C-alpha cells in the first residue's frame, strides 16, 4: 500500500470526464445481462416449490406429479445437495432448501430443473406438501416481547443517559414504526452455472459479492473454492439486494448443473423475487429524549428493534449501523442506544443502500421535528444548535467527528436554497389556504464510511499493460450501474499519466482478484480504486527504474504525463516506451492491494473508530398537500452534498439524485404490506409503487460541496453510494411539517413511514385533533377564569 504520489494530488476537476463506460451499450441494447447470454441447447431452467406456511413442520412431501410433468428433468430436495445445505453469508440458518421445517412463506422446499422456465413454474404447482403449523412471530414488537432474537442485543452508551434525563426541562417519549423497502432492481435475481471438466463450475452471477457466491457454491457442491469460478460483468441494479441474496441462485444452479451435467439457469420471475428475497428491515424504534428550553438535546434513550426475519443474514451489521447513525448529525452528550435483532417468521431481511443507517437517521430527524414544535422554533434552528461542531465532536461510540463541515454545509444550503424566505412564504400561504398546505424541511446526513466488519475493508486489483500500450484492469468491485468501472479506469489512467482511452475494464472474476469484499458500504471506489492505484504505482516504479538504467537519467527526470513518457530531455509515446520496456524484460503486470487505515471498533467496550471518515450532505424539500385526501407533490428539492474531491462529478451527481429519489420512494409511495398469516401482499409492481418520473420535482437542484477529504482517500474523494439516500428524509420531514401547519406548528403529529397519502391524511387529522383539543382546553380555562 502506498501513498499518493505527490504529483497526483490535483484531482479530476480540470479533466474532461468520461461518461459511464457502458452508456452507448445501454442505449443500443448491446449491454449483455445474464439472461441475454445465448443459451446452450441443453440448458435447463429452475423454479422452486415454496412454503405456504410462515412457521411449520413439514409432515410430508409428495413430488410424484412434479416429476411426471412433461419437460421436467430433475427435482431435488434438501438431501440431494451434495455438500453443505447452509448458504448463510456470515453466520448460519439460511438453507438452500428447507428440511423438516419452514420458517417463512416463500421459503424454497424443493427445486425443479426443466427444459423451460414456463414448464418448471407449471410443474412446481403440482407438489403436495403437508405442514403442521407452529406459532409464528410476525412483528418485531412480538419478537421483543417474546425475547426472540437472531443475535444478541448490543448497546452503545455515552455519559449517563438516565441521570441526565431526570434533569431535562423537556422530555418527549414516543415510538415510531419504520417500514422496510423492496429493492426493485430492474434486473431480477439470476445465475447461470456451467459445469467444467474437473467437477467444478463456472457461475455467471448477478451479484455484488462474487467471492461469496464462489465460497458458497464450493460449500454446497463439496468442492474446493478454487474449483469454482464466478464472473460478474454487470448487474441491472443491486442496491444491497444482491450482496448476500444472490448466492442462493448460484448455488441452486450449480447443484443442478453438476447433477445433470449441463448448464442451468436460475432466474427468478419478479413475483418470486419479491416474495423469496430479503428487503430493507422494518424497525420499531422507541425513544425518550430530554432537551433544554432552547431545544438542545441533553439526553437520548433509544431502543431500536430491527425486523431481521427468520435468520441473521447481514442483520448484525444492519442493526449496528442503525445504532451508529441514531445521532445522525447531532451531538448527544448523554445517550443509551440499544439495538435488538428481532426474529420473525418472515423472509430474512438484508442489506439495502444505507444498511440500517436510514432507520437511525430518520429517528434522529423525527426527534428534531418534535423538539422544534415543543420549543416553538424553526426545526432548522434546532438542527443547527445540535449539529456536530467545535466543542461538540464526540459520537456516542467514541469516534470524533474531526472534519468540522456540517454546519458550514447546512448554512451554505440554507442560503442558496433561500430557506428563510421560503419558510416565511409558506407560513403565509398556509394561513390563507384552507385546502392545500405546504411543508418545508432541511435535513442533513452524516454517514460513516467503512465496513463496520473490519476485515472487509480491503481491496484488490490486477493491472496488465500490453505491448501496444493498452491497459487492462480487473478489481474486486462489481458494476451495478454506479460507475465504479469508469471511476477505477479514470484512476488508473490518471495515476499512469496516460489517456483514459487506453484503459480497458473487464468483468469481475474470482480468478483475477481473490477473496474480494462485496461491493457495498459505498466503499467500492475507496477500496478498489486504491488497490488499482497501488498496482499502477508498482508498474510505474519498475518502468522508472528501467528508464533510469536504460537512458542513464535521474529518478526525477522520468515522468508520464498527458500520455507522453518524459525521459530527461526526450519524450516518447507510451506504446513505444512500453514496447521498449517489454524488449528489456520489464514485468508489465502487477496486483495491487489496499486496506483501510486507522479503523477499529471494540465491540465489547462499544467504543472505537468504526469509520475512516464521514460523507456529509443536506437537502431542502418543499411539498404541497391536498387536505381532502392527503395526496401530495414534492415541488422543489435543493441538495448540497459532500463527495470530497469528486473523481467524476457527472457520475456522483447521478448517484446523489438517484439515491435521493430512492430514499423519497421509501418514505412516500413504497409500502410493504403483509397479511395476518405472514404472507407479503405487495408482491408485484402492480401493488408496490416505486417513484415514476412524475414524482420527481421540476426544481431539482443538486450541487457538490467543494472540499477535499481530509483523510487520505483515493484522490481525496469521498464515498457517494449510500449517504444521499438519507437526504430523502427531508421529504418525510416536509410532509410532517405540512401536517403540523394544521395546528399552527404547536405539535408535530405522528406520521407513519412510509408517508402514503393515507398516512399524511391521518397525520393532518391528528394535528387537527390536537388543535381542537387545545382550543377547547383554552376555552374551558377562559371560562373558568371568567367564572372566578
Amino acid at each position, binding site marked *: 500500500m502506498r501513498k499518493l504520489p505527490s504529483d497526483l494530488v490535483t484531482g479530476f476537476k480540470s479533466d474532461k470526464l468520461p461518461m459511464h463506460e457502458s452508456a452507448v451499450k445501454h442505449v443500443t441494447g448491446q449491454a449483455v445481462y445474464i439472461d441475454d447470454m445465448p443459451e446452450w441447447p441443453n440448458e435447463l431452467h429452475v423454479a422452486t416449490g415454496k412454503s405456504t406456511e410462515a412457521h411449520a413442520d413439514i409432515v410430508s412431501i409428495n413430488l410424484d406429479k412434479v416429476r411426471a410433468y412433461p419437460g421436467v428433468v430433475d427435482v431435488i430436495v434438501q438431501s440431494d445437495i451434495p455438500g453443505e445445505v447452509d448458504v448463510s453469508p456470515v453466520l448460519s440458518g439460511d438453507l438452500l432448501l428447507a428440511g423438516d421445517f419452514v420458517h417463512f412463506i416463500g421459503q424454497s422446499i424443493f427445486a425443479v430443473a426443466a427444459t423451460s422456465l414456463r414448464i418448471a413454474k407449471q410443474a412446481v404447482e403440482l407438489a403436495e406438501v403437508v405442514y403442521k403449523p407452529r406459532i409464528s412471530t410476525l412483528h418485531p414488537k412480538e419478537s421483543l416481547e417474546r425475547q426472540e432474537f437472531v443475535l444478541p442485543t448490543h448497546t452503545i452508551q455515552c455519559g449517563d443517559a438516565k441521570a441526565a434525563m431526570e434533569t431535562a426541562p423537556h422530555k418527549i417519549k414516543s415510538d415510531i414504526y419504520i417500514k422496510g423497502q423492496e429493492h426493485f432492481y430492474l434486473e431480477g435475481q439470476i445465475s447461470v452455472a456451467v459445469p467444467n471438466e474437473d467437477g467444478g463450475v463456472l457461475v455467471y452471477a448477478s451479484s455484488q459479492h462474487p467471492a461469496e457466491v464462489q465460497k458458497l457454491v464450493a460449500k454446497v457442491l463439496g468442492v474446493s473454492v478454487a474449483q469454482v469460478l464466478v464472473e460478474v460483468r454487470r448487474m441491472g441494479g443491486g442496491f444491497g439486494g444482491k450482496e448476500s441474496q444472490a448466492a442462493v441462485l448460484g448455488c441452486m444452479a450449480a447443484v443442478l448443473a453438476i447433477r445433470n451435467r449441463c448448464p442451468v439457469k436460475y432466474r427468478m420471475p*419478479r413475483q418470486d423475487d419479491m416474495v423469496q428475497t430479503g428487503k430493507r428491515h422494518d424497525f420499531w424504534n422507541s425513544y425518550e429524549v430530554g432537551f433544554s428550553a432552547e431545544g438542545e438535546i441533553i439526553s437520548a434513550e433509544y431502543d431500536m428493534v430491527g425486523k431481521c426475519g427468520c435468520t441473521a443474514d447481514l442483520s448484525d451489521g444492519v442493526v449496528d449501523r442503525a445504532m451508529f447513525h441514531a445521532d445522525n448529525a447531532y451531538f448527544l452528550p448523554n445517550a443509551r442506544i440499544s439495538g435488538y435483532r428481532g426474529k420473525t417468521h418472515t423472509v430474512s431481511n438484508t442489506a439495502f443502500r444505507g444498511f440500517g443507517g436510514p432507520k437511525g437517521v430518520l429517528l434522529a430527524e423525527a426527534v428534531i421535528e418534535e423538539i422544534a414544535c415543543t420549543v416553538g422554533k424553526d426545526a432548522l434552528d434546532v438542527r443547527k444548535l445540535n449539529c456536530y461542531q467545535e466543542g461538540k465532536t464526540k459520537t456516542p461510540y467514541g469516534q470524533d467527528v474531526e472534519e468540522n463541515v456540517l454546519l458550514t454545509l447546512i448554512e451554505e444550503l440554507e442560503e442558496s436554497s433561500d430557506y428563510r424566505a421560503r419558510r416565511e412564504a409558506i407560513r403565509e400561504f398556509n394561513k390563507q389556504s384552507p385546502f392545500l398546505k405546504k411543508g418545508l424541511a432541511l435535513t442533513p446526513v452524516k454517514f460513516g464510511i467503512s465496513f463496520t466488519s473490519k476485515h472487509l475493508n480491503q481491496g484488490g486489483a490486477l493491472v496488465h499493460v500490453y505491448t501496444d500500450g493498452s491497459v487492462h484492469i480487473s478489481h474486486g468491485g462489481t458494476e451495478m450501474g454506479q460507475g465504479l468501472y469508469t471511476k477505477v479506469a479514470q484512476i488508473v489512467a490518471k495515476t499512469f499519466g496516460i489517456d483514459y482511452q487506453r484503459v480497458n475494464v473487464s468483468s469481475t472474476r474470482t480468478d483475477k482478484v481473490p477473496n474480494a469484499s462485496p461491493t457495498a458500504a459505498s466503499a467500492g471506489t475507496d477500496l478498489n480504486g486504491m488497490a488499482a492505484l497501488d498496482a499502477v504505482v508498482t508498474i510505474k516504479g519498475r518502468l522508472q527504474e528501467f528508464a533510469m538504467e536504460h537512458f542513464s537519467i535521474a529518478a526525477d527526470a522520468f515522468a508520464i504525463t498527458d500520455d507522453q513518457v518524459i525521459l530527461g530531455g526526450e519524450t516518447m509515446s507510451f506504446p513505444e516506451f512500453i514496447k521498449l520496456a517489454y524488449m528489456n524484460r520489464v514485468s508489465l503486470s502487477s496486483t495491487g492491494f489496499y486496506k483501510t487505515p486507522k479503523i477499529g471498533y471494540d465491540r465489547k467496550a462499544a467504543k472505537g473508530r468504526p469509520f475512516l471518515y464521514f460523507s456529509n450532505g443536506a437537502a431542502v424539500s418543499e411539498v404541497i398537500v391536498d387536505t381532502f385526501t392527503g395526496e401530495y407533490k414534492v415541488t422543489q428539492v435543493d441538495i448540497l452534498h459532500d463527495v470530497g474531491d469528486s473523481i467524476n462529478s457527472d457520475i456522483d451527481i447521478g448517484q446523489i439524485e438517484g439515491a435521493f429519489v430512492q430514499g423519497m420512494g421509501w418514505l412516500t409511495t413504497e409500502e410493504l404490506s403483509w397479511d395476518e398469516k405472514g404472507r407479503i401482499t405487495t408482491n408485484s409492481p402492480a401493488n408496490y409503487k416505486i417513484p415514476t418520473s412524475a414524482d420527481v420535482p421540476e426544481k431539482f437542484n443538486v450541487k457538490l460541496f467543494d472540499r477535499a477529504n481530509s483523510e487520505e482517500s483515493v484522490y481525496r474523494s469521498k464515498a457517494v453510494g449510500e449517504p444521499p439516500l438519507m437526504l430523502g428524509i427531508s421529504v418525510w420531514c416536509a410532509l410532517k411539517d405540512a401536517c403540523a401547519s394544521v395546528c399552527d406548528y404547536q405539535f408535530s403529529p405522528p406520521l407513519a413511514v412510509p408517508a402514503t397519502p393515507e398516512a399524511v391524511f391521518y397525520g393532518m387529522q391528528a394535528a387537527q385533533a390536537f388543535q381542537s383539543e387545545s382550543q377547547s382546553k383554552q376555552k374551558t380555562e377562559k371560562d373558568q377564569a371568567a367564572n372566578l
Partner: protein
Amino acid sequence: MKFLLNDKLIDDNTLPSDFTALRYLREERGLTGTKEGCASGDCGACTLLVGVIKEGELHYSTFNSCITPVQSLYGKHVVSVEYLSEFGGKASGGLHPAQQAMVEHHGSQCGFCTPGFVLSLAGLFENSQSSDKAIDRESVCDAISGNLCRCTGYRPIIDAGLDMVRTAKDAQFIELMSKNDNIKSQLLAFKEVEKPASLSNQSYLQPTTLAELLQVKTAHADAIMIAGGTDLMLENTQRFHDFGTLIDVSHVAELKQIQCNGTTLTLGASVTYSELEYFSKTRYPHIYNLLSRIASRQIRNRGTIGGNVANASPIADLPPLLLAFDADIQLLKIDGSTRTVNIADFYQGYKQTQLAKDEMIASFDVSLNKLAQFHRFYKVSKRMEDDISSVMLAVRFEVDNGHLTDVRLAFGGMAATPIRALKTEAALMGKVINDEQALLQTIDTLRSELMPLSDMRASSRYRLDMACNLIRKAWLELNGTDVVTFSGHALSESVLSLGNEITSQEGMTHA
C-alpha cells in the same frame, strides 16, 4: 402471424396463441435488447414501438411487449432498440437522437431499463417531429409514464427527452420512421394482400368485421376473447396458465368507433384508453384528466374500454364513470341478436357480470345531456402515475333551479363491484345545492351505506373517509369553489401561489 420486425418480414405460424412478443424477440430472434423486468406491464423495460397506418399516415406508439401476444401484431411495424441505432445510423453516426441524448445526459446507470426508455422517447420524438409539436416536460413524463428506473431518479432522462430535438439537429438526423416510404409501402402491401382475419390459424383468430367475429365465436365457443390483453395476459405471464385459442377483437372495425348521433355518444368496446383520452381532451376535460391517471401510456395504448368493464374488477376506473352517466351497454350474442343492459344492472357480484358465455360487449351509449351536466372524477392512489385506485369517485349532479334534481355517486374500490351509493344519492336528491347541512347528513348516510375492505392499497377507514371527503370536494366544486385535484400533469404555477382558492369555506371539517 405476419409482421414487419425492424427491417425483416416475419412469417411464422408455429407459435401458441399466448406467446408474448417479448419472448418472441428474445428467445426466437435473439433480440435481447428488450428486457423482462416484471412480465406484468408495470415497469416498461420491455417497451417496443409499433407502427400502424391510419388514414394514410404511419403512426408509432409504445406498448408493453411482455403482455402482448406476438400474433396480435399482424400487419404492423414492430421496432426494437436494435433497429434505432441502425436506422439512425444512416445520418447521425450511429445513434438515434433519443439514444444520443440519453448518453449525453447520463440517462443510464445500470442500463437495464434503458432500452425501454429509449423507445418511449423515440416514440415521442417521432410523434412530435411528424406533427410539429414541441416537446415539453409534460409530454416527456407522459411518454415515460410506464417506464420505471431505479437508479437515476429520472432527472437526466427527462432532460434527455427535452434535448432530443437538439441532438437530432447536431447529428443532422433527418429521416423519421413515420416518413419512411419503404416501411409504409410494406405495411400497405400487407393490407391489400391478406386480411388479418387469418381464420385458418387455429390458435389466434383476428376477425376484422362483426360478421367475422360472430362467425369465429360460433366456431370456437370456448375460445377466450382478448382485446388489449393488459389484464388477461397476466394469467399467462404471472400464473403461467396456457390459453388455447384466442379471439382478438381489437381489429373489428365496428367495435373501434366513437360515434355521436346528436343525442348519444357511442363508444365501441375496442376503443383504447388512449383513443378515448385524445377524443375527450378538448370535449370532456374531466374525462381526459381521469384517463391521464389510469395506468401508463403503454397500457393506455393497448387497454380498451370494453375490457375494463367486462373484466369486472371492483377497482377498475371506467365502470364508476359509466355508472355516473347511466351508460347503456350493448351486448351482442353470437346469433347476431343484441340486448341493452344498463351499467347499473351489469355487475352481479365479485368478478360476476350479466355477460353470458355466448355474448360480448359491443358498445357503450352515453347521453349527451348527461355529459353536459356537472361531473367530476376523483381518483386516490398511492402514486400519481400508473397506480390502481384505493378509492375512485365518479359524480354527476343535475341542477335545476338551484336544486339537485339528479345525483349519481359511483365508486370504485368501495365494494366487491363498482357500486353506486344509492341511499346517499337519494338523500341528496331535491336538496338546495349550497345547503351544507344536507351535505353533512349525506356523509352520515354514506358511512352507514358502504363497508369497504382493508388491503395493501388502503384501510377500510381511509376508503370511507375518502368517499366522504371526495363528495364534499365535488359539492364545493359544484358551488363554485376552486379546489385542486392532483392529476398526472404538472402543477401549474398558479396552484403553487396564493390567490387561486376561494377562502369562504373556513376550517377543515373533512371526514
